[in-house]
């Protein structure tokens, strides 16, 4: 059973008098443990697709099975529950709470999962340590570098052990070197068996993934497995976490 299965998915927006077909009859499936990049120019529907897969948005028609469960008919609160348990988001702009420490940011999904304070703290500290930020837990986002912020975001995304890690242009606001570090972190996470969906418009970044899905005008225009030889090598692990 695939982890993600989309069947004839459509998403239509009504913008005033104009009807926008962001996704047209898209079908797609992703297996557990895959590392997939979704590519496409802006307006190709990749953001909409990510929102639907991330359960932030619901399709206008078609079905979306996550772990065999139909989530396309769920209401707001059920979707919130799914997002909390099954999906970890990493955003281009980090989207950390600016007034909360790194630790609190990482604890947040656990709060909404109802985990008690002591255990929460423990799990969050471990998650921060696993992205190499054990010594930065009390720092506020504005006291951290861009790369560190994104790693806090990754720790937050992973803290509830989600089925999917959804990353939307995770290197978009980082310089090349820091971006490479984040991609190295993703490589490690993929090797540990996490399912990663990476949305990007940069061919370079997409080449880190094992499979690339190309979108155009709301349809899947290409779906290719990357032979190992053509993949970009991750940065050496020694400089990855904690750099």
């Amino acid at each position: 059973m695939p982890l993600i299965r989309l069947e004839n998915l459509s998403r239509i927006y009504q913008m005033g008098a104009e009807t926008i077909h962001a996704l047209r009859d898209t079908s797609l499936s992703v297996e557990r443990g895959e590392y997939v990049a979704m590519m496409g120019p802006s307006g190709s529907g990749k953001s909409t697709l990510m929102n639907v897969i991330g359960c932030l948005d619901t399709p206008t028609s078609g079905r979306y099975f996550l772990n065999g469960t139909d989530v396309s008919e769920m209401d707001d609160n059920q979707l919130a529950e799914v997002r909390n348990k099954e999906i970890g988001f990493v955003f281009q702009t980090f989207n950390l709470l600016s007034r909360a420490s790194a630790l609190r940011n990482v604890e947040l999904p656990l709060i909404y999962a109802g985990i008690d304070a002591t255990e929460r703290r423990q799990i969050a500290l471990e998650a921060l340590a696993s992205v190499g930020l054990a010594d930065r837990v009390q720092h506020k986002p504005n006291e951290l570098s861009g790369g560190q912020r994104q790693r806090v975001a990754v720790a937050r995304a992973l803290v509830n052990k989600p089925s999917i890690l959804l990353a939307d242009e995770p290197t978009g606001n980082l310089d090349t070197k820091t971006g490479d570090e984040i991609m190295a972190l993703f490589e490690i996470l993929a090797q540990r068996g996490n399912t990663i969906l990476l949305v990007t418009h940069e061919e370079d970044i997409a080449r880190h993934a094992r499979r690339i899905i190309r979108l155009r005008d709301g349809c899947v225009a290409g779906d290719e497995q990357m032979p190992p030889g053509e993949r970009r090598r991750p940065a050496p692990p020694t400089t990855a976490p904690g750099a």
Partner: protein
Amino acid sequence: MRFFSELREGLWIAWDAVRANKMRSILATLGIVIGVVTVTLMGTAIDGLKRAFVKSVSALGADVLYVTRRDWFLHTYQDWMKTRNRRRITLEDARLFTRLCNSARAVAPMADVGAPVKYKSRESSEVRVVGTTEEFQYTSGINVALGRFFSPGEAEGGRPVCVIGAAVATNLFTQGSPLGEQIRIGSGAYEVVGVLESQGSFLGMMSLDNQVFIPLQRLMQDFWNTPNLTIQVKVRDIENIEDAKEEVRGVMRRVRHVAPGDPDDFAINQQEQFLTMFNRVVGVIASIGLFITGLSLFVGGIGVMNIMFVSVAERTREIGIRKAIGAKRRAILLQFLIEAATICLLGGVIALGIAYPITLAMEQFFPAKLSLPVAGLALGVSLLTGVVAGFVPAWRAARMNPVDALRNE
């Protein structure tokens, strides 16, 4: 469990938000502070007024019935017309009544007149002269501070003796004990046998200490030979005051020869009548007063609502992040409700801090006290204001679409 962690998170966020926007929170709180201060002061004032009244009326005694020709409170002109031709209550009525009424603890007929009281060169011009019997000391609950009340023999014989109130004593006697001295009441000479303890005033108008008590027989001789009496009846058991009232009524009907089926030609009054009358008046004043002061709280509530809309608007992105991470509608709703409630509760606490010294100052004039129930009510009302004012903004936040919220810059 999850609810509690959401609650704690909500409290943390609320406190953080208040701290982050100190100036704004203070300004938003100001409306609530003013509202709660006025409501609290109004409540305290009404409370104090009531307390003053009850204290003053309690001089009448909760367990004492007052048999009079007319009701204390005639509510309509018809009532007055009906009762104006009633016969006076005479000494004979009172004597017969006393003999027949055996369930009472004490019975004392009384009548009063105003008269000047003199001692040597000192004079009190308008003193209430009460003629009664020795049982008055039991029905009225007065205490003799010095000397004694007059005796049954003195009362029966109409001896020229008197017991004087505390104010009369201090007015007439600058030095030395009044006991055994002769004072002039009206034109007669009386010997002072006792001085009463101070009792304060009745309804703030009539001093209970500016009175002298003489035997009723004497009063009839010297001042008024056909007085209209009031019979004070102290009941045995306050629990059964209604039964006692029925018995007094039956006895009085016999005394006055009221034919069966005819209406009473007398009235039985008690302290309660004052209280019902008063409560009716104060109830109206209180509801109008609280309504007007409540308006200022309402304005404060609107201020908080306004601030909450601003808070929700500027934290749209945060709401999006929280929703993406798995916050349900309830969690977001709770977060903003708690924030609004925190601002208002803070206002309530500050308001109590301001209101408390003011009530202390008010206490100089009448027994106003910031009571625990009023303080609790003030906090409760401010909390409620916060929840009500915060609800619409919080609801709007809770219903936000996460995709749109995240896109917000």
